[in-house]
């Protein structure tokens, strides 16, 4: 057998099935020593399954895995860690009640001779790692007190602390701001130069193109090909991912402004945002862009009644409305697609039909429910969002991320809102579904709905918004129209520059 000597890891003909689903189908993959190999693919292509096999979470699989040429059967997470495979998952796997140091070194604490934890060494080692990652957190801080992006950095620190040979990262930047991504990338490059092999999974092509040495594309449980750095191209990757070119998938047309639907005056939430004056019109897609911490998500949540604004007024169709709860928001014509579809958008252990029928119960039924007469009507919404479902009774948690988001959209569409609020609608969603969602949003807007969209994805904002507000540290700093909506402008204003003259166009 010809063993390539610079292969850190090689997977040969890996197959894995779940009830009713072939997750991986004779997939092969190789990772060279000291390289960054990025894996891209649609939701359901098998990326998560593959790395869970590598990290020992799924010990039952077919096929062989070779580490440095030696065949190894990976049977549990501890063993995976012992052979040098460290994984940073998308879901935060931290114990909120323990300190940062304890989380990083959980079950691997440095011990004194008598068996007790050596706190001095523990904190010292933790500080070292945190400093390397330029994370400004103290080792003895309790994890539950940290912000989400800090938690993600701790998660990364955890993997790095294990001194691994293979580092696997699944969407590590989903909650990070631009500076933190920069720091992370520098660190990843350092690790690579020091000989660590890295598997990097992400939907963000821009990042992947920047950091990866090679790019592997998964589709339907198979490895459909690997590209070298000089062959990286958006079209090529898309083609391989979904089998067709999606450049022409989505067009944005120009909007004809009609009446004003939503208007905020002096809208404030103490300590979070202040004096927000904005408006949206019928048929318009308005975006709100800002860095993490600018208050943009909270703004949306406050409009929807999840928080009570401390100052200011909301007008819908020129009428003053008081929104103190999501219930009142819904009756005023608002719909809200939250950022976290798993935690806030869907009942994971309920079926598709149960999820979409939870809204507007009073409109559809007169208190008693004896026959679900509205099933056909609700199914209509599933068709609008182009959801392909095997069975209306499937639990939503069994759907892919993209399909889950579609269910959330269908649910809110069934309420026929005047204004649809979207918080990071395509976070963690694959390319094709993303394009479908953009088309859908545009279609909805042009048919009369007003859309207010918050996003941290610059390209998304540029592609679909008719008008953009930029927020910085709780205030609206700029409004951009049409052609003004460009990446450079967004980056510029969101970082805190207020004077237009400074920007030389």
């Amino acid at each position, binding site marked *: 057998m010809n063993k390539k000597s610079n292969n850190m890891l090689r997977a040969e003909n890996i197959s894995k099935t779940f009830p*009713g689903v072939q997750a991986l189908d004779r997939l092969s993959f190789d990772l060279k020593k000291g390289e960054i190999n990025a894996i891209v693919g649609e939701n359901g292509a098998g990326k998560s399954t593959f790395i869970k096999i590598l990290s020992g979470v799924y010990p039952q699989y077919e096929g062989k895995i070779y580490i440095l040429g030696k065949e190894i059967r990976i049977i549990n997470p501890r063993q995976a860690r012992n052979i040098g495979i460290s994984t940073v998952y998308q879901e935060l796997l931290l114990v909120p009640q323990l300190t940062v140091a304890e989380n990083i070194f959980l079950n691997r604490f440095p011990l004194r001779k008598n068996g007790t934890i050596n706190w001095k060494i523990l904190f010292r080692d933790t500080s070292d790692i945190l400093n390397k990652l330029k994370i400004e957190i103290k080792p003895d801080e309790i994890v539950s007190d940290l912000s989400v992006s800090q938690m993600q950095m701790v998660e990364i620190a955890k993997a790095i602390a294990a001194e691994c040979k293979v580092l696997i990262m699944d969407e590590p930047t989903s909650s990070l701001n631009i500076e933190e991504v920069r720091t992370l990338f520098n660190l990843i490059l350092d690790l690579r130069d020091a000989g660590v092999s890295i598997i990097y999974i992400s939907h963000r092509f821009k990042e992947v193109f920047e950091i990866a040495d090679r790019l592997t594309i998964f589709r339907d449980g198979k490895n459909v090909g690997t590209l070298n750095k000089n062959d990286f191209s958006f079209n090529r990757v898309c083609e391989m991912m979904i089998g067709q070119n999606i450049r022409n998938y989505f067009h944005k047309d120009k909007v004809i402004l009609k009446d004003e639907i939503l208007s905020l005056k002096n809208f404030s939430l103490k300590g979070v945002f202040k004096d927000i004056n904005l408006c949206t019109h019928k048929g318009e897609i308005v975006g709100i862009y800002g860095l993490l911490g600018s208050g943009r998500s909270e703004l949306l949540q406050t409009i929807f009644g999840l928080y009570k604004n401390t100052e200011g007024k909301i007008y819908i169709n020129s009428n003053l409305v008081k929104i103190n709860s999501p219930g009142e928001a*819904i009756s005023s014509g608002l719909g809200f697609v939250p950022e976290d579809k798993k*935690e806030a958008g869907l009942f994971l252990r*309920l079926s598709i039909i149960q999820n979409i029928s939870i809204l507007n*119960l009073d409109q559809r039924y007169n208190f008693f429910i*004896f026959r679900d007469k509205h099933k056909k009507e609700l199914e209509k919404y599933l068709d609008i969002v182009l959801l392909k479902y095997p069975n209306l009774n499937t639990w939503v948690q069994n759907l892919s991320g993209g399909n889950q988001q579609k269910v959330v959209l269908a649910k809110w569409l069934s309420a026929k809102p005047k204004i649809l609020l979207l918080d990071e609608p395509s976070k963690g969603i694959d390319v094709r579904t993303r394009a479908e969602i953009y088309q859908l949003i545009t279609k909805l807007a042009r048919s009369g709905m007003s859309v207010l969209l918050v996003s941290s994805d610059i390209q998304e904002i540029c592609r679909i918004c008719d008008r953009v507000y930029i927020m910085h540290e709780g205030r609206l700093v700029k409004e951009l129209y049409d052609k003004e909506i460009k990446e450079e402008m967004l980056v510029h204003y969101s970082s805190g520059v207020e004077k237009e003259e400074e920007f030389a166009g």
Partner: protein
Amino acid sequence: MQVKNSFTKNSPSKFRKLNINRVIRQQGILIFLIVLVIIISFISSDFITKDNIINLLKQISILSIVICGMTFCLVGGNFDLSVGSIISLSGFIAVSLLSKNMLLGIVAAIIAGAIVGLVNGLIIGKLKANAILVTIGTMSIVQAILLLLSKGSYVQVPYEHPYRIIGTGFVYGIPVPVIICAIIIIISYVLLHHTTTGRRIFAVGTNRVVSKFSGINNTWITVFTFIISGVLAAIAGIILASRVTSATPKAGVGYEFDAIAAAVLGGVSLFGGSGNVLKAVTGALIIGIIANSMLLIGIPFQINLIIKGLIIIGVVGLDNYFRGRQI
């Protein structure tokens, strides 16, 4: 389409092949019940007699009423450990006011139960405090107030008082408690499984955050479930006091645990969002049948306890096995 809110109903299509497995999982409790009845009727010929069955139904009707209320709380994601003290309190109020006006006493008792439920619901729903702790607290408070009012002694129902009909009377040969219980079961079933409010209770029990984001008023739903639990416990207490013809301060002690055990036996999830009133009552039926048959066969009370415990653990364990997961 009937929305059956049980974990096992919505499973991937692969399981359609394993029909028997699914049937057992969904209706396991019912099957167990039938098997149990068959076994016992072989052991004791007195079991399937009209008298015994009526006796049995009478015995479990009080517990079943409490279970209906408890199911609302459990489905909504909470526990109500104060039902025992509400039972004692309501019995006491109803009997104490017999000398003035029977109806007044009954109404007052029910209102008392509703008030306790309201307090529970507000603290747990609005302040999001831990249900177990709060209801332990309200239980202690209610118990203490009751001891204060009763000065530790009991109140007697006067001889031949119409109040006795509630607990010991018959209508067309069926005991009054059983009739009341049946009515309550039907109302509870419809309320929880066939109304918009019931749908919302399931939502809140499944995931409070998603419910809130979907515009459901979590506080009001929680308050609602606790008021129902309190009212039903009060009704149970009224019947109990009538049946034993007296109201003691500790009449309801232990009912809360029995109610939870029976509900879980009946497939109600302790985590919320899943359960069925009819199946929960089946759990009470099982506990009642076991106690009844022990009596018939002549097995001493101690062994009854042991068997009850074994059955509870066993039934849940088997149920887990068939579902392949932890409740």
